[in-house]
């Protein structure tokens, strides 16, 4: 992992542990994300990557370890009140995998955004309509979509709405949990480009949870490879992908289908690991 000086870290995760019964889902996971940076967490199902993300967002609690955003401990029992809740929301936001399930089917796109704005910016009521327009514009949607119900939108459009909803809070870190996995290739590329633009414009930090090494390569600067709840390798994305040090990282890389691909050798390597 690259050395990031303390004041440049927007997110720092230290010594996270989480067990479900006898299964150690997350075991001593530590990493940090630079301000405006993009970090990928790669792993297969059961690697603990999603649990890690959920702990960071606050949907899951860690048995031990700390999550700091801008140097402030999120897990601190500081507040259960409204103020603390909103403060936590402004630190980290999340985009979920399935755009068909992450929006309330009964609420229009405009209302989704207005609802969030009303919660976080209750004073400036007059400005909400303009802000909704801005947010939709930022994710490439127009006034026509603002009045639409989620079911009238395509998967890509819904994922844009989910991104706009997360941005409405103006968080420091955006966690993207397999956020493009359910999309078609041509739409996926649009969303990945959109995310790159947003990061450039706003300086938001990304935590990309994915199983797809192609996506990691495309949108992250640093990467963490997880297996069975532990980090097996981490470093600059380009270096890790070009010269993997851990056998599991190599296996993951070899498993990506390409012409001249040899699935049987991969199966052998997998069993050997």
């Amino acid at each position: 992992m690259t050395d990031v000086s303390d004041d440049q870290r927007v997110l720092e995760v230290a010594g996270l542990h989480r067990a479900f019964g006898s299964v150690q889902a997350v075991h001593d996971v530590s990493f940090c994300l630079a301000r405006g940076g993009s970090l990928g967490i790669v792993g297969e199902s059961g690697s603990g990557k999603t649990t890690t993300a959920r702990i960071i967002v606050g949907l899951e609690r860690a048995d031990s370890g700390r999550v700091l955003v801008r140097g402030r401990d999120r897990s601190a029992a500081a507040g259960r009140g409204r103020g603390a809740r909103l403060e936590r929301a402004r630190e980290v936001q999340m985009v979920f995998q399935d755009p068909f399930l992450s929006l309330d089917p009964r609420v229009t796109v405009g209302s989704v955004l207005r609802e969030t704005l009303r919660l976080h910016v209750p004073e400036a009521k007059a400005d909400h309509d303009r802000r909704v327009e801005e947010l939709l514009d930022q994710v490439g949607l127009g006034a026509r979509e603002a009045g639409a119900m989620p079911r009238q939108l395509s998967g890509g459009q819904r994922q844009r709405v989910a991104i706009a909803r997360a941005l409405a809070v103006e968080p420091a870190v955006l966690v993207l949990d397999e956020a493009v996995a359910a999309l078609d290739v041509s739409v996926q590329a649009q969303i990945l480009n959109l995310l790159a633009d947003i990061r450039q414009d706003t300086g938001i930090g990304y935590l990309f949870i994915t199983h797809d090494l192609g996506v990691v390569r495309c949108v992250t600067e640093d990467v963490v490879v997880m297996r069975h709840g532990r980090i097996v390798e981490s470093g600059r994305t380009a270096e890790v992908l070009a010269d993997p040090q851990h056998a599991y990282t190599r296996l993951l890389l070899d498993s990506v289908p390409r012409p001249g691909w040899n699935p049987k050798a991969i199966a052998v390597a997998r069993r050997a690991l």
Partner: protein
Amino acid sequence: MTTALVRRPGLARVRTNRPLLYLLCLGFLGVVVLLALLAPWLSPHDPNAVDLGNALAGPSAAHPLGADGSGRDTASRLITGARTSLLGPLGVVAFSTVAGVVVGVAAGWRGGWLDSVLSRTTELVFAFPGLLLAILIVSIYGEGLIAPVVALGVAYLPYVSRLTRSLVLAERERPYVEAYQVQGHSAVQICLRHVLPNIAPVVLAQSTINFGYALIDLAGLSFLGLGVPALTPDWGRMVFDGESAIQAGYPLSAILPCVAIVLTVVAFNVVGERWADQVARRDR
């Protein structure tokens, strides 16, 4: 949606995939409700006007559906009786729906010990027959509409609360609920603004079906002479009053309220089930 509505065995066989049947039932219910609302203007006679000279009279121009053993006009009593017969179940359903939803949401959302306490308590109520509970309460507090309505409301609460609980459990698993949590919305806000409206159609469908059952149960109580005061026109009471007429070989004044009860209950069932089906189809 995998959650099945609770239906009684005999009525579960009434299939509702025919739109014509649904429309007929909906129309029938509309007519019954209209009759109940406009009863004072529609009744050809005073439903309680006794005319012993006319006792057990057959249908005639003055009394289109005949008269009962005391010479009261059957048509008027049917129309006016629709009021009590519908008002009682309405009370039962309103009480059981509101209380059941509160209990179900609390149990499903909060989980843990609260869920255990609430679920076990409602199961206890479930185990106790509603009709028996109502008879008990009526025998303590005397006749009147309030006591049996409250008793049946409590007895029907578990149907609604169990359904609500399972719906809430399924709904809170949906990522959109987590998305709102991450956004900083409070649990109460998420429940009221998003979870409840999403599960409401199914709960209302169940309540519609419950309406029919409450109607049967209240009519049964009236038939037993419990519940509705003697002189109030009520379908169940009319069946009870008509017993002697049947023995006299003149069954019309007892059969007609029976028919009204059965048709109304079936209609509520068909409509409720159809609504549930529509919700299920929309969800897919």
